[in-house]
């Protein structure tokens, strides 16, 4: 035996490499979030959250930005979730692997790889120029829906496919129709995964600046409806940072965005876990 590394040592080395990969992943996340929080949290207080910006955001708070973010995210999820889940149900339950399915998948993968600024340009060309609509959070939300759609579709597809066929067989054998089976057995069993997909898509939409750059109007005022112009958090922090308005407030805005996404993720995970545990009787 004249191997350079013995199998035993190779095993040890590779185990360390994999361990390190995991640890580095966590570290990167912690460093970024930690940095943002350390730089941003000092300016975050109740007043910052609840007041309007002054001097283009150099002073004052970010209340309109939080409201804008909520509006665009809601619009995006309300459009992308039914579309994505619906397409996933169609692919898995209502059709066999055929050219249309391949086309849907190809379309969704392509959509996922389109740069966000291109979505932004499309939004400008379609909503503002072609339809002649003014800048609005609604247009921003629609563009973000397109961005969230592939994630929601792909994760839903995997979750629905993971539901054991025996559940569907049991339901059909009791005389349930296809739709009764899908709505009463398959979707409830796939809901934890689907919810995760929707949250992933939502987080992506929520943290996007480039895609909405040209359509939401970047207004500093409080939006009173989804058809008003607005300025979601990512766009605000981008503007503050690039125009040299206030780097401190830019970090503060980023910290708020990160915290909102963290809270949503943690709350959803907890709810989903409880639901799964109850469903599976553990």
């Amino acid at each position, binding site marked *: 035996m004249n191997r350079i590394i013995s199998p035993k040592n190779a095993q040890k080395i590779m185990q360390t490499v994999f361990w390190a990969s995991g640890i580095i992943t966590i570290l990167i996340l912690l460093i970024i979030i930690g940095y943002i929080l350390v730089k941003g949290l000092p300016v975050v207080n109740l007043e910052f959250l609840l007041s309007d910006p002054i001097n283009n955001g150099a002073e004052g708070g970010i209340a309109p930005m939080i409201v804008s973010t909520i509006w665009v995210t809601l619009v995006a999820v309300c459009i992308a979730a039914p579309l994505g889940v619906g397409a996933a149900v169609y692919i898995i339950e209502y059709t066999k692997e055929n050219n249309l399915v391949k086309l849907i998948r190809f379309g969704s993968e392509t959509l996922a790889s389109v740069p966000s600024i291109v979505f932004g340009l499309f939004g400008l060309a379609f909503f503002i120029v072609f339809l002649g609509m003014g800048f609005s959070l609604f247009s921003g939300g629609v563009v973000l829906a397109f961005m969230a759609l592939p994630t929601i579709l792909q994760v839903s597809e995997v979750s629905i496919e993971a539901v054991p066929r025996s*559940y569907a067989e*049991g339901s059909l*054998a*009791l*005389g*349930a*129709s296809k739709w009764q089976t899908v709505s009463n057995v398959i979707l*409830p069993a796939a809901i934890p995964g689907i919810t995760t997909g929707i949250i992933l898509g939502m987080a992506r939409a929520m943290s996007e600046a480039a895609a909405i750059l040209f359509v939401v109007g970047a207004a500093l005022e409080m939006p009173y409806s989804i058809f008003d112009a607005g300025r979601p958090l990512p766009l605000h922090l981008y503007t503050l940072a690039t125009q040299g308005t206030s780097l401190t407030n830019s970090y503060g805005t980023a910290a708020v965005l990160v915290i909102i996404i963290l809270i949503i993720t943690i709350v959803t995970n907890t709810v989903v876990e409880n639901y799964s545990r109850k469903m599976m009787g553990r």
Partner: protein
Amino acid sequence: MNYRIEVEDLNVYFDEAHILKDVNINIEKNMVTSLIGPSGCGKSTFIRTLNRMNDLIETFKMSGNVLLDGESIYDPKVDVVDLRKKVGMVFQKPNPFPKSIFDNVAYGLKIHGENEKFIEQRVEDSLKEAALWDEVKDKLDKSAMGLSGGQQQRLCIARTIAVEPEVILMDEPCSALDPISTTKIEDLIHKLKKDFTIVIVTHNMQQATRVSKYTAFFLHGEIVESGLTDKLFIEPEDKRTEDYITGRFG
């Protein structure tokens, strides 16, 4: 005529594969009929033609006829949903839904639009009939996934009888269960034949002799021999049946 199911010259193909060949058999009302035979002999495919579960397979083709109470179940006018209400099925691996015990039994009733009061009573009756009530009556709202395999299978039987079918098909219902659970299911089968016609696929020849009045022996997609269980096991007419039941193959 005392037959619940009559099968005439049934041939089944999946793509080019000829799975069932000229199967003819009559299944008597309120009796248990066992289908035995080695793996791959077509007995599971056969039982799935009786509630049209094979329709779910794209490559499925058939000829011949299956009559339920004298009416063809493959007639284009037949609604598969109605058929499956009349012909229930219990599967090899217990497959309760990831829902509460109550909701599992109530499921078939709910989708058929029964009212709540009726459902509540039916759930209790069905669980009692399936000899599961005493074990679960205090945890009806708990997930069925937390039950043991044997309890899950009795729950699946309760779920099936809740919609009051005429026929219950059982596809190796005990093959995933321990001997004690198996005994409970067999006792249950004895009890259920008063109200239901039961067709059971089994790998276990002792089980066939214990539970069924009639037995059919399948081999390579054909029925080699069928008739009274006692006769088939004691003095089989066909050499192949004898070889199989004496354990020479299979």
